[in-house]
C-alpha cells in the first residue's frame, strides 16, 4: 500500500518531529510511505481567506504530487478536511478536474483516522506514561468525524490514562489568520481551553492539529503554566526518539 505523507506546512516549518512520528507510525502499520518533496501547502489559508483562485492552484499542485498514491495521509484534521471536503467544492464547476480531485479526496485521511479505520493499526510504539486529555480539533471532528479514533489508539497504550476535559469539542480559538486578526478574542478562546485543560489535571494535552497545539501551548506558557506538555497525537503514539 503506497501512502503519500502530506506533512503540512506547519509541521514542516514548526515541528518536523511530528512528520517523522507520522512516518514511523505509517511504516509500523506496514505502509510504503512516500513523501513528495515538492509539497508545500494545501491551500487552506487562501481558501478560508476568500482567495479561491490560489486555493485552486495549490489544490492542482497537490493533486499532481499525490495522485499516484493509494492514500494521502496528513497529521492534521484541518488539512485532511481541506482536501477531503473542500477540494471537490473548489472544482464543482469543472467536471474534468472534479473527477480526479474527488477520487483523491476520497483517498485522503487524517492520520489517526487512517490508522484506525484503514490499516486497523493497534500497536502504537510510543511509551508515554501519564495522564492526558484530548482536544478535538474542529475540522477533524466536524468535517471528518474524528473523535473515537485517537482515543481508541491512546487506549491501546498501557501507560496512558485519558481524562476528558470539559468542552473538549469547543474551538481553541486558532482559526488560522483569525488568531492574528482577532487576537484578543482568539486569546480568550485559548484561555478558556487552557482553564479546562488545567482543571482536568493532566500531564499532557494532546490534539491532532499543530495549529491548535501552538495556540494552546502559547497561551498555557503565557499563563505561567510551564509543566503541562503539549503534544501531537503522532508524537504520543510514535514516541519522539531521534528526531529532535
Amino acid at each position: 500500500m503506497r501512502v503519500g505523507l502530506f506533512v503540512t506546512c506547519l509541521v514542516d516549518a514548526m515541528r518536523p518531529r511530528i512528520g517523522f512520528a507520522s512516518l514511523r507510525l505509517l511504516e509500523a502499520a506496514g505502509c510504503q510511505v512516500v513523501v513528495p518533496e515538492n509539497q508545500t501547502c494545501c491551500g487552506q489559508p487562501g481558501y478560508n481567506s476568500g482567495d479561491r483562485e490560489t486555493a485552486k492552484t495549490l489544490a492542482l499542485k497537490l493533486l499532481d504530487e499525490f495522485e499516484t498514491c493509494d492514500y494521502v495521509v496528513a497529521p492534521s484534521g484541518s488539512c485532511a478536511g481541506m482536501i477531503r471536503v473542500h477540494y471537490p467544492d473548489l472544482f464543482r464547476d469543472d467536471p474534468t478536474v472534479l473527477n480526479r480531485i474527488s477520487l483523491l479526496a476520497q483517498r485522503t485521511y487524517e492520520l489517526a483516522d487512517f490508522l484506525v479505520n484503514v490499516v486497523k493499526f493497534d500497536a502504537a510504539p510510543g511509551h508515554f506514561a501519564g495522564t492526558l486529555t484530548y482536544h478535538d480539533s474542529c475540522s477533524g471532528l466536524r468535517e471528518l468525524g474524528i473523535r473515537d479514533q485517537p482515543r481508541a489508539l491512546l487506549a491501546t497504550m498501557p501507560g496512558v490514562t485519558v481524562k476528558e476535559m470539559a468542552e473538549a469539542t469547543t474551538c481553541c480559538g486558532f482559526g488560522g489568520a483569525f488568531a492574528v486578526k482577532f487576537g484578543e478574542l482568539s486569546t480568550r478562546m485559548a484561555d478558556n481551553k487552557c482553564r479546562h485543560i488545567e482543571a482536568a489535571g493532566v500531564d499532557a494535552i494532546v490534539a491532532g492539529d499543530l495549529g491548535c497545539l501552538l495556540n494552546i501551548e502559547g497561551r498555557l506558557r503565557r499563563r505561567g503554566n510551564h509543566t503541562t506538555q503539549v503534544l501531537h497525537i503522532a508524537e504520543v503514539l510514535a514516541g519522539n526518539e531521534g528526531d529532535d
Partner: protein
Amino acid sequence: MQVSSIHFKRSVTEKLNDEKLQNALSRLQTRFVEGRAAVIGEIADFEETRTAAAAIRDRVLKNLDQWLLHFEQQAIARGALVHWAESGADVNRIVTEIATLHNVRRVAKSKSMVTEECGLNEALEHAGVEVVETDLGEYILQLAHEAPSHIVAPVVHKNKEDIADLFAEKHQLPRKTGIPELCREAREILRPAFLAADMGISGANFLIAETGSALIVTNEGNGRLVTTLPRVHVAITGIEKVVPTLEDVTTLLRLLPRSATGQSITNYVSMLTGTKDAADHDGPEHFHIILVDNGRSSLLGGDMQSMLRCIRCGACMNHCPVYQNIGGHAYGWVYPGPMGSILTPTFVGLENAPDLPNASTLCGACGVVCPVKIPLPDLLRQLREKQMSLGLKSWQEKLALKLWGWMARRPAVYAMVIKITVRILHFAGGKERMLHHLPGASGWTAGRDMPAPQGKTFRELYRQRKLS
C-alpha cells in the same frame, strides 16, 4: 435599527472586558448547549429530521412567490388582510396606517425581531401611539433602552441584579431580588397594558400556506394575550417564514424548541387563523398580516439562498465560541452570532460589516447544530470570497495571501524562505524555545507566546536522512 457593525473590533475589546457580561454569558453553556444536547435524543432520527426540515424549507424557497400567494389567498379567505412590505420603512408606514384606521392609541407587542429591523416602536411612538413590549426580556430592554443581544433570549446579557435595579428605578417599587418576585412585578405592571391595548403586534415563527395561519411559539403566554385580547392584531414577519402545510410545520416544530431552548415543546404554540367569528368568545376583530421583504428576496437564486431556510432558533449563536465570549451587541445590528454574521453584511452591505464574515474560526459548531442544515461556515467563507473580489480586503492581507500563494507554487523558493525564517525564529526563541514577540503578529503575541520552531524544516531533515 442603526448599524454599528463597523465598530466590531472595538466592541469585542469592550465586551471581553465587561465582567458582568462575561458572567451572564457563562450561563449560555448550561442553559442552551447542554439543554439542547439533553433533548435532541428524544427524536430517534434527529439527523433525518434535520434533513427533512431543510428539504421543507428548500421546497418553499424554490417557489417562494407561489407559496406566498397561496398563503395570502388562504389568509384572506379566513378574514385576514395581507400587506406586502418591501422595506422596513414600508412596515412602519403600513402599521401606522392600520393604527390610524382603527383609532389605535395603545399597542401591546410580543417579541418580533423583524420589527427590530424596521425600528417600528420608534415609528409608532413618533405617530403618537404608545407601545409596550410584553415579552419579559423585551420589556426589560424597553425599560433600559437597549437592543436585544440574542434572538431568542434577548436579555441574556443582563444579570438578575441589573434587572432588579432597573425595576426598582423604573417601577418606583421596593427592590425585589428573587426571580419569581421580579416576574410577578412585571406581570402586575403588564396586565393592564394587555387589557388597555387597542392593537396587538406579534411576529410569526411560521406562516402556514395551507390554512393561512400565523403560528407563534412562546413560553410566557404574552403572545396569546397580544394576539387575542386587543380588537386589532397585526402579525409581522419575513416572507421566508411561509411553510406549505400543517404537516410540514409539525416537522419544524420538533426541531425549533429543542434547538432553541432545549425544550421538547414551548409552553405555548399558538396558531392564529382569521378573525373572530360570531360564535367565538375571543380573538381580534381585525387581523392584518404584513409580509416583509427588507432584503430577503435579494438572496433568492444566489449563493446565499440557503440562509433563508433559517427558522431563528439561535442554536448557531448558542454554540458559537465567538458569540459565547462577546454576546450579541458587538455584532452591531439586529442579528448576532453566525446567522447574524451572514445576514448583517447581506442586508446592510458588506462594506458596513467587513469584520463579521471574518470573525469566525470556521470551527463548524454552528453548521452541525443548525436544525435546517444551513451551511453557515461555507456561507461565511463565500462572503470572504466576495470581499476579496470586491476589493474590500486590506492591502496587507491581500499582499500576504498573494505572497504566500506565489511562494507555495514555487517549492524551491518556498523551501529557501521557510528554511531561513524558521532558523531565525529558532534562534530568537532562545533556550526557552518560546517567542514572546513576533513582528507583524502582535495579535498573537499580545496574549500568547509562540512556541519556536524546532530549527530545521521537515524537508531538510528528510533529505539529510535520505542521503545518510
